[in-house]
């Protein structure tokens, strides 16, 4: 049964969870609160074959709830999975990650490293490239963007290109872009992918009340607008119940500014 009242964060969680429906038996990693709830939701509903870690060193047969857990909480380990083994998994390709980059460009390239035009002296140093280069060339990647704006979806290329995307000038010798698997992007405005003409970013669905104009105004490059644009599917009551179980302390309510409702009033 579709829910009638839900938050935008919950709508984004359910959209992000659907990313994994047809993945089969892969390691799913959701970086940050909303992607992690989404990955857990998928494992508890649409795709029970998913593998997930405790973000430390174990694979779990059941996802851990987010936030503080009771002192007697016992997680359901199934396999030791230290960081070096994560790389073995990454390089095998049997993984799908949802990350939250600071910049995404028209080529589906992402940036978490640094901002500014001078690499030797960045305006804002962030994390570094982390595992993004390897993730992007080895396995499926989706992105979640809490505040869709042209500061995130930048006009030019990302200040530091941390991932391989679909820029023809950067295509390595012997490679085909079909080998690069950027799946979907989940924002507070809608769901997007890079399967428009010439791998252009396109609208997959818009959240209730969001217009095409709003998307284009907040994106630094032209977005492909398909003829039919569905509204993002509302969460079901069953999904909301699972989300509550995964996030009993309602950390999801703190992830988007002012925790807006899913259906704009």
């Amino acid at each position: 049964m579709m829910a009638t009242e839900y938050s935008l964060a919950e709508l984004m969680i359910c959209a992000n969870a659907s990313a994994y429906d047809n993945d089969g038996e892969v390691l799913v990693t959701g970086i940050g609160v909303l992607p992690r709830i989404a990955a857990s939701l998928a494992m508890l509903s649409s795709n029970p074959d998913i593998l997930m870690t405790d973000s430390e060193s174990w694979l779990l047969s059941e996802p851990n709830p987010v936030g503080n857990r009771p002192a007697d909480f016992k997680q359901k380990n199934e396999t030791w999975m230290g960081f070096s083994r994560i790389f073995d998994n990454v390089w095998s390709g049997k993984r799908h990650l949802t990350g939250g980059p600071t910049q995404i460009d028209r080529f589906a390239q992402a940036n978490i490293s640094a901002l500014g035009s001078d690499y030797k002296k960045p305006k804002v140093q962030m994390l570094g490239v982390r595992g993004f280069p390897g993730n992007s060339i080895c396995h499926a990647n989706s992105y979640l963007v809490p505040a869709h704006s042209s500061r995130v979806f930048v006009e030019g290329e990302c200040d530091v290109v941390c991932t391989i995307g679909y820029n023809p000038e950067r295509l390595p010798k012997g490679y085909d872009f079909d080998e690069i698997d950027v799946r979907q992007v989940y924002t507070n405005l809608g769901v997007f992918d890079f399967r428009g003409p010439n791998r252009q970013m396109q609208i997959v669905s818009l959240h209730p009340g969001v217009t095409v104009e709003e998307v284009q105004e907040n994106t630094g490059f032209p977005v492909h607008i398909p003829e039919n644009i569905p509204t993002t599917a509302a969460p079901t009551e069953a999904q909301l119940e699972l989300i509550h179980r995964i996030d009993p302390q309602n950390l999801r309510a703190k992830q988007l500014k002012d925790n807006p409702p899913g259906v704009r009033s």
Partner: protein
Amino acid sequence: MNKELQLQQLVGQLRDGMTIGIGGWGPRRKPMALVREILKSDLKDLTIVSYGGADVGMLCAAGKVKKLVFAFVSLDFIPLEPYFREARQNGELEVMEIDEGMMLLGLRAAAWGCPFIPTKIGLGTDVIRNNPDLKVIDSPYDEKEWVAMPALKLDVALIHADRADRRGVCQIKGPDLYMDDWMARAADTTIVSCEELVDSETFTDENEARFVFWERTQTQAVIEVPGGAHPSSCTPLYGFDIPHFQAYNASAKEGGFAAYFENYIQGKTEQEYQAAVGGLDAIRALPLPVY
């Protein structure tokens, strides 16, 4: 062979310009007591290879780092390391910014005596553009190009372990050894601080020997420093010190590293440092992190 050293002997093992690998990961099981010895020393022009946390931030802030080989520098719950950030934004650092997995491959290449290991990681990204020394090569077996990730040879690896004996048998009982085994293998000299020096008899039990991840030939010195990972964690013995990291982070905005250094490190022995942060019992009582 007795490889025991005292903490104050560490700096005598190090030289200006050395390439030093630091074990641990972000705010987890960093050899911070060893790092503090470097901070107090005259050592300079170091090349640091690290899955970076406050070890990197502090060494940058103290002007010890000429070049940094990194994939990230982060305190996890405080995502951006304040002093690493400052050093980068001031344009002070020479950097080799690579993917986390590339760093592992570089350490493995060094450990195995290979000049490089081929990988597709980095292709199509600025990792290649920003590291002109990183070569992209043709394969003798296929039509694709590959990144030749060079060996990251370390003069010294600094690691914090749970327990060790005086021969250099080192044990890590925490849930993850991170890349410490590869750091040890990539280095000419591995210096390990540990929570506890134990009798070799300890490892007779196979349930103890199973948590030894490199051979003692890869360890050249052991130094007993209980609490020596503070303020980073040494799971399962203690978690990372959240209030301390918060104060450290705040110091970047008020007083700068000089104030932090003066409060906790300058002119202080490790015992005095620990007294300034609440004592060893308080360190050992720090709650384990929940992820």
